[in-house]
C-alpha cells in the first residue's frame, strides 16, 4: 500500500482510458485499451487483489485484445465520429 504508486497508476489508467475513447484509429484504440488493462492489473496487484489482477491480465489484456482485433479486422479500421 504505497499511495504514491497508487496515484501514478491511477493517473496512467485515466490517461489510457481517455486516449482510448478519443483516438480515431480503432486498432490503436484497441492497443491502448490493452495498456489500460495492464495498468489496471498493476493497480489491482498493488492493492493486494492478486487474483483479480491475474484475471485482468489474462482476460482484459490477453484474450480481450485479440477478440477486439478480430472484430476490427472484420470491419473498418477508421471510426467516423
Amino acid at each position, binding site marked *: 500500500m504505497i499511495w504514491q504508486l497508487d496515484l501514478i497508476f491511477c493517473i496512467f489508467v485515466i490517461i489510457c482510458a481517455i486516449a482510448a475513447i478519443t483516438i480515431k484509429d480503432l486498432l490503436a484504440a484497441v492497443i491502448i485499451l490493452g495498456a489500460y488493462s495492464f495498468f489496471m492489473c498493476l493497480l489491482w496487484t498493488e492493492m493486494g487483489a492478486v*487474483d483479480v489482477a491475474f484475471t485482468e491480465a489474462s482476460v482484459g489484456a490477453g*484474450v480481450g485484445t*485479440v477478440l477486439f482485433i478480430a472484430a476490427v479486422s472484420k470491419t473498418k*479500421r477508421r471510426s467516423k465520429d
Partner: protein
Amino acid sequence: MIIKRTIDMTRQSDDVIVKTLSRLLIPFIQIYALYVIAHGHYSPGGGFQGGVILGASFILLVITFGLDNALRRMTERLNTILCSLGVFIFAGIGLLCIILGGNYLDYGALDKIFHVGIAQARSLGILGIETGVGIAVMAVMTSIFLDISTGGLPSTKERNQSD
C-alpha cells in the same frame, strides 16, 4: 479517403520467425495454464484464468498456423463437446455431493467414495470443479474467437478453402 485494409487473422502466417517462436512458445503456455489450474487452491489463479490461458494458446495456434491446421487438431465438433463436458463435470460433481448426502458442491461428502479424510476430499473436489471450469472456459474462448474471426462459420470456411 477510406483505407480499405482487411486483415485475415485465420490465414497461415508467412513469417518464419513468428511460426518458429510460436511453435516454441505454445507448449510452455499450455504447461503454465495447467499449472495455474492445478494450483488454484492455494495460489492466485484457478479454473477460469487457466482456461483463458489455455484458450489463448489455441488462439495463437490459429493466428500463426492458419485455421485449417488448427481445426485439424481440434475440430468444432470436439470444441462443442468440450464446452458441454466442462459444465457437465462441474454440475456432476455438485450433484454427486447431493447424492452422497451433503449439500450442492459440499465436497466433504466425497469422502465416502475417496476415503481420504474430509479435508483431502474437499481439496480433490475443488480440483475437479476447477478442471471442469477450465475445460469449459477454454472451449468457449476458442469458439468466440473462431466465430468472430471467420464471420460465424469456421467449418464452412475450411471447406471452401480446401476446394
